[in-house]
């Protein structure tokens, strides 16, 4: 009850100088706002990325073309061949269950007047099994399709919907980049696989993609499924050995490919996130220090301005500790208030980014808001300590005489 009165009086003190109090908290507002916005972006990105990698199996390796530094610039070396996929399977029967070579491109897909632009994936029959991603209708690719460079395609769920509506697409003919393909299947609805929206994707035989369609000699990537997720490290070593010998890399020379696992990607991301977070929290820390100094400054002014008031309070029976608490609360409340405005500002910024920037999804964890507010409060209390002590130590007679 008594404390409540003191807090009410602290509010009264602030209210008379609302604008000045707000100005004093600018540092806190900016600091807290920046933290909230940045945390939202980071958390959003992390969620998105982790979610996507979750959909990749823990037993998979992804082999990508390597890169080398030339004149300070990183250049991709297209090194993965179609034969690498077979070689990996052949050389590591105990460790590798299957491989799926991938060539990615994009083309217009047409059915009479209907027209969509779709990512086109050239791959092998193993793709469906590796990703546990199968057809809803018709059939998937076969070895014969691949061997024969067949002009067949399987449509992603949305592509089929866009081109054929509710009618069955299987058996129809579509034009991909002007070339006629038979639709042999439609995939189940899946959303995304890794970073790819597979529902909007069209799958064709790898040989057709590399040959007649896009004239590529190298793969975009290669998925390797291991037989045993606990032997992933061994599997990586083994695949590496095969690829080095296939690519005729002499001992001591660097790989011309990169092998990733889901774990590694997560770890890499976590490392980047940590660096990002450190930078972010340093900035936040500095703004909070600046904010704290601002509050301390304004509290010193308030104590001087209200010296007489402090004398009066003491004359009517306030203890020194009552004065201390009142000014501490004032500092804490201003700062908390600044923190609240900062949170609103941060949320506004992150929402704006979410809607304006297409690839960005932001997420603000509630705990971050609580943390930011607590931090603001603590900064306020800390920076209020010195002014409040100054107020509490005033000599009542001197204070009453103060002009």
């Amino acid at each position, binding site marked *: 009850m008594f404390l409540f009165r003191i807090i009410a009086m602290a509010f009264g003190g602030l209210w*008379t100088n609302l604008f000045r109090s707000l100005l004093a908290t600018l540092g806190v507002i900016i600091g807290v706002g920046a933290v909230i916005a940045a945390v939202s972006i980071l958390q959003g990105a992390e969620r998105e990325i982790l979610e996507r990698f979750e959909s990749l199996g823990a037993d998979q390796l992804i082999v990508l073309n390597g890169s080398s530094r030339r004149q300070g610039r990183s250049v991709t070396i297209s090194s993965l061949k179609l034969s690498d996929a077979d070689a990996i399977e052949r050389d590591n029967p105990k460790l590798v269950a299957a491989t799926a070579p991938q060539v990615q491109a994009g083309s217009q897909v047409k059915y009479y007047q209907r027209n969509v632009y779709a990512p086109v994936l050239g791959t092998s029959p193993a793709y469906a099994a590796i990703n546990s991603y199968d057809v809803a209708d018709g059939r998937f690719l076969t070895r014969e399709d691949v061997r024969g460079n067949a002009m067949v395609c399987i449509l992603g769920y949305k592509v089929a919907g866009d081109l054929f509506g509710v009618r069955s697409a299987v058996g129809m003919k579509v034009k991909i980049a002007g070339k006629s393909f038979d639709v042999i299947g439609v995939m189940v609805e899946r959303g995304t696989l890794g970073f790819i929206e597979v529902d909007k994707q069209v799958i064709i035989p790898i040989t057709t993609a590399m040959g007649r369609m896009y004239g590529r000699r190298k793969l975009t990537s290669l998925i390797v499924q291991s037989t045993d997720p606990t032997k992933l490290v061994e599997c990586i070593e083994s695949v590496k050995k095969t690829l080095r010998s296939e690519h005729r890399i002499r001992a001591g020379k660097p790989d011309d490919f990169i092998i990733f696992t889901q774990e590694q990607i997560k770890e890499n991301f976590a490392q980047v996130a940590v660096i990002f977070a450190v930078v972010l929290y340093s900035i936040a820390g500095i703004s909070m220090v600046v904010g704290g100094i601002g509050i301390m400054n304004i509290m010193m002014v308030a104590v001087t301005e209200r010296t007489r008031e402090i004398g*009066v309070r003491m004359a*009517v*029976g306030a203890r020194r500790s009552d004065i201390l608490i009142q000014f501490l609360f004032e500092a804490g409340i201003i700062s908390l208030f600044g923190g609240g405005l900062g949170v609103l500002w941060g949320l506004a910024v992150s929402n704006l980014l979410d809607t304006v920037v297409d690839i960005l999804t932001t997420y603000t964890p509630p705990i971050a808001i609580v943390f930011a507010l607590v931090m603001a409060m603590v900064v306020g209390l800390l920076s209020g300590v010195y002014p409040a002590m100054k107020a509490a130590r005033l000599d009542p*007679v001197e204070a*009453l005489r103060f002009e």
Partner: protein
Amino acid sequence: MIEGEQLRKEYNMGDTVVHALDGVDLRIAEGEFVSIVGASGSGKSTLMHILGCLDRPTSGELLIQGQPVSSMNDRRLAAIRNRYIGFVFQTFNLINRTSALDNVALPLVYTRKPFSKRDARRALERVGLADRARHTPSELSGGECQRVAIARAIVNHPKLILADEPTGNLDTGTSAQIMEIFHDLHANGLTIVIVTHETEIAVQAQRMIQMCDGRVIDDSHVDEARRREVVALVESTRRRMFRTRSAS
């Protein structure tokens, strides 16, 4: 009820020592109405601050209802100021941003007990300002401000009112109103000590203390003859001043 023995207050001003109080012996009984007069700088305010436990003497002892103040800590003194003593200042010393009612209620806050604002309202009624409860000090006249200050001084039902030149900033008519309130409080049993420069005001007390250079030089009962004498003197001075002014 309040007793000072050889009260001294010294201020060190570099190489000189100012003796604001230079050995004051004083005894004020319950129910008295005392005025303190003296030249500027004679130590009246200093004495009031010490009597009101706002300040401690450099040496000597103050007894409040027999209890030595030197043995009390700051907390205890704050409690005494809160419950036992009411201060009235020359410059009112109200908190400008809050209403008259909140100003009056301030001592109740520091009593640390649940209270209702009704007590504060009752105190305002006693000084005849119930209708101004919601006004802030800047919306009140000087006399009204001083009445609010008196209401604040009495809200916690203290035993002793200490008023340091309460009419110093007010005109004669308003001063009379304020004095009226003090007389009323006195009639209701409060002990009143009032510092003043005006003899007219001082003789309204039952007892008048004169100070000079930090000492009490006279402490006497004010009888009716003295009172009439002073009033007559003041009247004639005023008439004379009026005449000279109109002549010139």
